[in-house]
Each structure stands twice: as C-alpha cells, then as structure tokens.
C-alpha cells in the first residue's frame, strides 16, 4: 500500500513536470519561462522528498534545501537581468 502511494506521488510529479516543461518550451515570453523554471525547481524538491523516503538516505534533504535557495537566486537574477537589461517584448 505504501509503495502504491510512493508510485502515485512519483507519477503525479512526473505529470506536473511534463506540463511545466511544455510551458518552458512554449513561452511565449521570457518571464513565462522563468516561472516554469521555478515550478520545475519546486518539483525537484518533491522528487527528492519521495526519493529520501523510498531509499532512507536522509542526507539528501540537504540537497533539497540548497536547491530551494539556488532556485530563489536564479529567479531573482533573471528578474534583475530583465529589469536592467535591454530585453523588451513589445518593440
């Protein structure tokens, strides 16, 4: 029963990953892709949670922590690049 729950969680996360990847490819603008990247980082944290439980290797939680922080830095860096840089959508 517990294995079924783990499999279901992995399957749902994979479905969400496919949907997020579709938005990453589709665009239509660069900020939309950044939003998709941020969702994919949260999804990876979910995958790590399932893996930690199914394998019992608790040090991987530290990986999830670092991933959360680097995803934040990436999003802020992208936002800053968009605001200060010369990238514009409508001209």
């Amino acid at each position, binding site marked *: *029963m517990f294995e079924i729950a783990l499999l*279901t969680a992995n399957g749902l996360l994979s479905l969400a990953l496919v949907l997020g990847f*579709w938005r990453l490819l589709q665009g239509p603008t660069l*900020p939309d892709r950044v939003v998709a990247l*941020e969702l994919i980082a949260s999804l990876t944290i*979910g995958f790590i949670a399932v893996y930690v*439980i199914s394998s019992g290797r608790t040090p991987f939680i530290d990986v999830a922590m670092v991933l959360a922080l680097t995803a934040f830095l990436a999003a802020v860096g*992208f936002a*800053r690049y968009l*605001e200060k840089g010369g990238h514009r959508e409508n001209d």
Partner: protein
Amino acid sequence: MIEFLTGLFLVVGAAFMVVAALGLVRMPDLPMRLHATTKAGVLGAGLMMVGVAVYFGDGGVTTRAVAVIGFLLLTAPVAAHAIGRAGYFVGVPLWENSKTDELKGRYDEKTHTLSSPPEMHEPEDQDDASR
C-alpha cells in the same frame, strides 16, 4: 499509521504540484501563472517535506525539513514579486479581457518609480481656488 500519514502527505502534495502545473499551462497571462504556481507549488513542496518529517520522526530530519519549508515560504513570494515586476516592466501583455491596469501610465519606465494618481491632488487644488 505513520506510513498512511506519510503516503497521504506525499500524494496530496504531489496533487497540489499537478494543480500548479495545470495553472501554469492553462492560465492566460503572466501574473495569473505566477499566482497559480507560487501558491500551489509551495504548498505542494511543503506538504511533501512534512511527509518526510512525519516518516522519519527524528529530530535532525524534522529540523531540516522545517528549514526547507521555511526557506520556501520566505523565498517564493519574493521571487514571484521580482518576476512579476520585471515582467511588467519589459511589457509582457496582459490578458485581453483584463478590466483595469492601475499601474498604467503611473510607472516611469526609465527610473522605475511610481507616481501618485492625479485624482488625489485635485480636491486640494479646488479648495485653494475657492478661498
């Protein structure tokens, strides 16, 4: 019992992640997509880390899981705000059925400063004229 609770947290968290991804695909413009992915995505990841904490029931694991949730809750709104602000400045189009854009014309595109709405000054001017 612990396995049941863990499975419940994992599946419900993953379901919220699917809701977030569906919102990312189906919502029509950037602010709505941010709204869907930030809230539902953080809730999903947080529930899955709660599942990890419940399953191991160990002090160190629980502390680290709570730290992950804390970092998520602290950073996700800031990142969403930064992306939304940057998206507004680079001119990402809003949904065509949007009724109002209250920032339109009040943001200086070069200096990124917000000016007060003109209606707030008009009553004072009328008072000065009547005296």
